[in-house]
């Protein structure tokens, strides 16, 4: 290896390459021109430690730990304001979700991050029957932060719950099994296949 290529390798930012290889839509990160319109357009931006355009800069600066352990990308509500306004049409929302997903996979996501907990509960609920079980999802969310708070939230939401039962938006029968997609076996086979494909991809890229 010539001195020149050695220097290129030394200064090539490996975290950007890692993001490009592993994060959904990560290829786009290099296209950001740091105009800041995404950060300014984010309705929750003031609550983010690092707004999207700062995250893109941090990725390019190789700040791996700071990015992947950050709470910021978990704050994205998918309002798509940033995508609509980005002058370079970066799929910012998708990159945020991609980063969050990657951080979780590596076990670097902040512990007890509420969005992450919600997403996991939602997925576990959905993956069972191919349909969201509203009753079980609601209850599991109420009890997400412990038994005491669960009871308190349940009582607070009692009237809405009863209203939903009355309007047939929710059924008590859902507590026993619950409704499913027509071809449940096919659905689970599909999920299994998808997981296999994902595992194969991960074993290649790490």
């Amino acid at each position, binding site marked *: 290896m010539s001195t020149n290529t050695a220097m290129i390798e030394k200064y090539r930012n490996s975290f950007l390459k890692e993001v490009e290889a592993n994060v959904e839509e990560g290829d786009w990160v290099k296209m950001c021109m*740091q*105009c*800041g319109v995404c*950060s*300014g357009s984010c309705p929750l931006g003031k609550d983010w430690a690092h*707004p999207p*355009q700062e995250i893109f800069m941090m990725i390019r600066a190789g700040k791996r730990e700071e990015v992947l352990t950050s709470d910021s990308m978990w704050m994205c509500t998918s309002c798509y304001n940033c995508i609509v*306004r980005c*002058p370079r049409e970066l799929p910012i929302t998708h990159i945020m979700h991609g980063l969050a997903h990657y951080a979780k996979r590596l076990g670097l996501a902040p512990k007890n991050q509420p969005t992450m907990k919600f997403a996991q509960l939602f997925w576990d609920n959905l993956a069972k029957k191919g349909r969201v079980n509203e009753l079980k999802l609601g209850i599991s969310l109420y009890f997400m932060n412990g038994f005491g708070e669960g009871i308190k939230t349940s009582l607070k939401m009692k009237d809405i719950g009863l209203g939903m039962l009355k309007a047939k938006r929710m059924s008590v029968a859902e507590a026993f099994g619950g409704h499913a997609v027509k071809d449940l076996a096919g659905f689970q086979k599909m999920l299994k296949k998808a997981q296999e494909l994902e595992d194969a991809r991960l074993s290649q890229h790490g």
Partner: protein
Amino acid sequence: MTEVVATNETILVVGGGISGMTAALEAAEAGKKVVLVEKRPYLGGRVTQLYKYFPKLCFPTCGLEINQRRAKMNPNLTILTMAEVTNLAGEAGAYTATVKLSPRYVNDNCTACGACADAVEAEFDDEYNYGMKKRKGAYLPHVMAHPAQYVLDPAIIGSDDAEKAKAACKYDAIDLDMQEEEVNFSCGAVIWATGWQPYDAAKIQPYGYDRFANVISSVEFERMSDPKGPTGGKLLRPSDGKEAKNIAFIQCAGSRDRNHLLHCSRICCMASLKQTTYVTDAWDDDADVSIYYIDIRAIDRFEDFYQNVKSNKNVKFIKSKVASVTENKENGNPVLNGVDTEGYNRYANEHDLVVLAVGMQPSVDQDSFPVDIVVNREGFIEQSDSNGGVFAAGSASDALDVNRAVQHATGAALRAIQVVNRVAGAEG
């Protein structure tokens, strides 16, 4: 009927702005016969609507006066105003142009005395001032208009106003029976100098150009700064006529944006820096200018100008593409919202007036050229052998400032001359 004497050795110049004028004059002064076709009732195009040039801050009226004098002096040059090329058939060395002439209703007897304008009553939006003031139904488009002849708005034809204008004219210059005409003539080469138009600021939805009176475009601000403009050169904001001292410029309003114009319009950074000097000249230490930018593109010799403006303590540079503009309902102040990318500070800044530095786009839509021509994805004309004897000049070819447009137009004149010289050689 209008007669146009032309042969295959004639050069047709389409568009009489600074580029078309330059190309036409250079070719005519090189001894070629030239027909210059201009859509507006006067020559000079958008340059006539500028108050000052950058970087020297001199007045465009100066160069315009020289060019107009050159045009008047040159017998090789035929000027058709209120004229549009509707068709061009043939090939290099042998084209036939079809030109539609709209009636001016005023003939060459006009002395520009203004009696007709005094006589008529109806008023219309003044397009020269982007509708920021009214003009009469009989009008001189601007004080230095060339040809120096009044124009009758077609909307008053058939009304009492038209008769009043005719009665007021002592020189028998008003001809209410003028009709639209179509003329056909030969030419050997064509210089296409149809120029640019400002990007429609209302399309940049988050900036509220169409919702907030105190959000204006850079071309409107230029008119406002001109002592001959709608406010007599006073920087007064549109909503309440209050003196605008705290002024924000938003750069890349439409440019470098895949949702709007793909290209960098090149002139807007320098235009805003220039317009900043209008504000600091007007209010001295009371001036408070903020420039919101992605990066300032003041290349080579413009760097000095940028550094000068930057050294003024009353001018702030904020590195941020503004996310949205809202309005303080109580005082009508526009509020700029965004994040400053140097420090990631969130801001909501109030200003008296906001100027959108709008981009340049070709004035002819890429699907409506009356001739086969190669355009790039931004709609500017590309140089190509398949364009035959048609050559772009100035900002029909790219987003250019006046200096570069004039250089480009001179080059286009040379290419056109080469074509008609070949024709002359072949015809012996």
